[in-house]
């Protein structure tokens, strides 16, 4: 029977995806996890090495205290419970860039467990569980090209061998490639906020593998999963998952069975390919690492570490919405990085009216940035500049219109607001009230009924008059001044 596209779509809709993600994050420690070699990226091959990270006979690992602190901090930021005792374990397998023939990792007693983060979904938020966060060492790099004899030899660079990593394993709570994408965005944002990693995917400091299966909607048991590896951007993860889910549905719909296997994503073709099957899967023969004592992070130490936990993006956004009266969206933009959010808040707090700073960011800055197609981090106007402009408007020195003009100049000249303000000779709006008073008199004369209402106690009508005056002045008038004059004239 030939399946028409319609029935295929309907059939495919009967399935749902179950996704779990394993994310490796490289910690920003100055030295490696078990030795004092530098972790600097980009040094000549095999220069950041010593007997320990080369796996020389007789060498022993000594745990980096900072790596523990960073891992615990990340785990706390992901709402995990940090275990008072965790155990390092050896994961045994042969590979040329794995110098000891085993990776020191953690297995049945990881550093932290039972965490969760929230991701935005249609109409609200969804909690994605974090199964565990554990510490481990990175392997070296196999270089298959770039050398004269690369045709038949592989070179090994062990600079990365022993660099501290955390592995963050999610619960299979992710139901779509879109959710996986959101999860990764949020996860990265949180890790960046803690400062324990730069999460730079190009340099490999954030890597992600995905476990994915499909099952009939409503079915409780999981389907057979595949593991998708070698995906080096969040967008590719989404694409790889989209492909893999459709592939699995197709296999099931045509009466086939999913094979448990590891698949590699080819981003040029947008397809996944079999790498190894379950039968070929490694038996890692985990056992407790006898060269390291159990890792103890007692309550006192946990409390110490927790003290350096910054306000996390989600909480900060909620507070900023409340404090500055900005929208969720703008809070999102302003918390893009911790540095930016810090700058904004510092500027806002230093300004005469913090909310005005927020309003200016929202109403004047964002639109211009969008039109220019640049990120807030590349804005010509700094948060300090926004604060100065807010103060100038607040104190009536410049008008709203003048501010807009100055912002335009800033963007045109790619200079910060204070510079442009200086270049323009510190302009001020006219303090001569006679023209404005004349306008007000005319407007009051033209609306006797509203004047009556005001005098009868319906003072809210003043808003109407302000609007009229502003329109008549083509928004050049200082609203504060207009208000003052109106109140005086109506009252008199």
């Amino acid at each position, binding site marked *: 029977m030939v399946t028409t596209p319609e029935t295929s779509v309907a059939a495919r809709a009967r399935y749902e995806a179950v996704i779990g993600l394993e994310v490796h994050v490289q910690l920003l420690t100055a030295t490696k996890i078990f030795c004092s070699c530098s972790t600097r990226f980009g040094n000549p091959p095999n220069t950041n090495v010593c007997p320990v990270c080369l*796996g*020389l*006979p*007789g060498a022993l*690992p000594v745990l980096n205290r900072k790596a523990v602190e960073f891992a615990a901090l990340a785990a706390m930021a992901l709402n995990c419970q940090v275990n008072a005792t965790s155990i390092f374990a050896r994961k045994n397998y*042969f590979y040329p860039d794995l*110098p000891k023939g085993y990776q020191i990792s953690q297995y049945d007693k990881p550093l932290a467990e039972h965490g969760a983060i929230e991701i935005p979904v249609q109409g609200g938020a969804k909690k994605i569980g974090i199964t565990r966060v554990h510490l481990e060492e990175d392997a070296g790099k196999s270089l298959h090209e770039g050398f004269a004899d690369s045709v038949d030899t592989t070179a090994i660079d062990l600079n990365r061998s022993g660099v501290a990593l955390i592995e963050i394993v999610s619960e299979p709570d992710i139901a779509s490639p879109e959710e996986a994408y959101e999860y990764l965005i949020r996860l990265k944002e949180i890790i960046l906020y803690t400062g324990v990693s730069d999460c730079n995917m190009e340099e490999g400091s954030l890597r992600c593998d995905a476990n994915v299966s499909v099952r009939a909607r409503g079915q409780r048991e999981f389907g057979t999963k595949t593991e998708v590896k070698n995906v080096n951007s969040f967008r590719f993860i989404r694409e790889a998952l989209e492909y893999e889910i459709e592939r699995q549905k197709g296999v099931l719909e045509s009466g086939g069975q999913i094979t448990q296997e590891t698949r590699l994503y080819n981003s040029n073709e947008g397809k996944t390919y079999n790498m190894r099957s379950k039968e070929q899967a490694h038996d890692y023969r985990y056992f407790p690492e006898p060269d*390291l004592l159990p890792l103890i992070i007692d309550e006192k130490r946990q409390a110490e570490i927790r003290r350096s936990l910054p306000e996390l993006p989600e909480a900060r956004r909620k507070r900023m919405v409340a404090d500055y009266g900005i929208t969720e969206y703008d809070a999102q933009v302003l918390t893009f990085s911790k540095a930016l959010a810090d700058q904004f808040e510092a500027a806002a707090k230093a300004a005469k009216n913090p909310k005005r700073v927020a309003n200016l960011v929202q109403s004047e800055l964002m639109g211009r940035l969008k039109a220019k197609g640049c990120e807030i981090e590349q804005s010509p106007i700094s948060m300090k500049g926004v604060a100065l402009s807010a103060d100038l408007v607040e104190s009536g020195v410049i008008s709203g219109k003048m501010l807009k003009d100055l912002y335009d100049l800033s963007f045109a000249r790619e200079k910060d607001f204070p510079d442009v303000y200086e270049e323009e000779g510190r302009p001020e709006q006219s303090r001569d009230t006679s023209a404005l008073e004349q306008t007000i008199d005319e407007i009051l004369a033209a609306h006797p009924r509203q004047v009556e209402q005001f005098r009868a106690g319906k003072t809210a009508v003043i808003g109407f008059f302000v609007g009229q005056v502003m329109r008549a002045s083509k928004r050049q008038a200082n609203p504060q001044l207009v208000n003052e004059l109106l109140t005086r004239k109506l009252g008199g």
Partner: protein
Amino acid sequence: MELTSLTIDSARSAIQERKTTAVSLAEWAYRKIESDDPTIGAFITLSKERALAKAAEIDEMAKKGEKLAPLAGVPFGIKDVMVTRGVRTTAGSKILGNYLPPYDCTAVARLETAGAVVLGKMNCDEFAMGSSNENSAWKPVRNPRDISRVPGGSSGGSAAAVAADMALATLGSDTGGSIRQPASFCGVVGLKPTYGRVSRYGLIAFASSLDHIGPLTKTVKDAAIVLRTIAGQDPMDSTSVGPAVPDYVADLEKPVRGLKIGVAKEYFGEGLDREVRAALEAAIQKLAELGCEVVEISLPHTKYAVPTYYIVATAEASSNLARFDGVRYGHRASAARTLSEMYRRTRDEGFGAEVKRRIMLGTYVLSAGYYDAYYLKAQKVRTLLTRDFDQAFQRVDAIVTPTSPTAAFKLGEKVDDPLAMYLADIYTVTANLAGIPGISIPCGKTSEKLPIGMQLLGKHFDEATILRLAHAYELAEVQN
């Protein structure tokens, strides 16, 4: 001056007092090695340049009248499982046939800082796996007391060299008895300290949770001097922990009267040679005469020690030896066409039969589906064995046992029977599993004039008590 008549203390004093020089002692040792070692086979590699440079340095200090360090000018041998910068270190294996380490083992560095002159690297069973030294990839070692017999293992070269006066003292390693059993076979003193007492940094790992470094010497006092030098925390070994290092040498003189000595029936059962039993009974009698109280105790889980040991040790070994893959150093099979062929051939050519056997056993016991039944179970039994000792040590200060069920056996006698060979460790593996200190000292001879060893086991980090007892016993024997 000849090494024959010297101990560590007397050698250092003689150099200090300029009755001899460190250089002449080293040269004497090298002449002795040249004449005797072709028969004994105790050394794998000599480090003459390094030794003579160090000796000259010591002599220069003595000449200036500077106070010499405790091991100044003492000719030492280092078991070939401890890495030595620039001096070939093979672990008794072909897979490291030409390996030149770029750093020094902490224990060796501490010896040299204390003035020791490192003559060379001692023969041993490949990767310290064996009880007869017949598993050396290079050559067997012969027992200087009877060259038709083995010196014990795996530190066979270390024990034989001291017994044959080719070195005044040596370092050995002990994973299941590898210092104590050869000490007993060769009639010298061998000390395995508490786990954590001596840094393992630079010790080529066999089984990390069981490996220990310790001295083989002519006298108990010499063992105390060496231990005092090499003991103590090392920032390079996370498992080197424990209380401050006491002055083991000063503590030797404390009285032994009133110490309680435990005798466990489990160590005097089936398989114990009649003459060894008799020698031990006499030694226990001697300890009683010295004023010790002999207490009968039981260590009920002893019978599980050998199987437990061979699970834990092989499991760890299978992982520890994975790094010998031909990629970075050591032997690499030539002309392999694929990566897996390179791995297979390198390891097939590089490792000997016993090492392969243990890698396979260890891989098996850690495999999915077998881990719980073997490795996990063994760890539980290990806990029980340790508890046996903890309970016994609530009642006694030390435990006395034979070091080995028999005196030295003949070369070739057990090579084809690995299980019989494994049982040679029956009295020594328990101390490794529990991490407690143990010392073997000579306690008489068989009718064939073969040395018999007595083992004294102590509480964790209480080397001082067993050294003190051993010292008192040794003095009493000498006075006889």
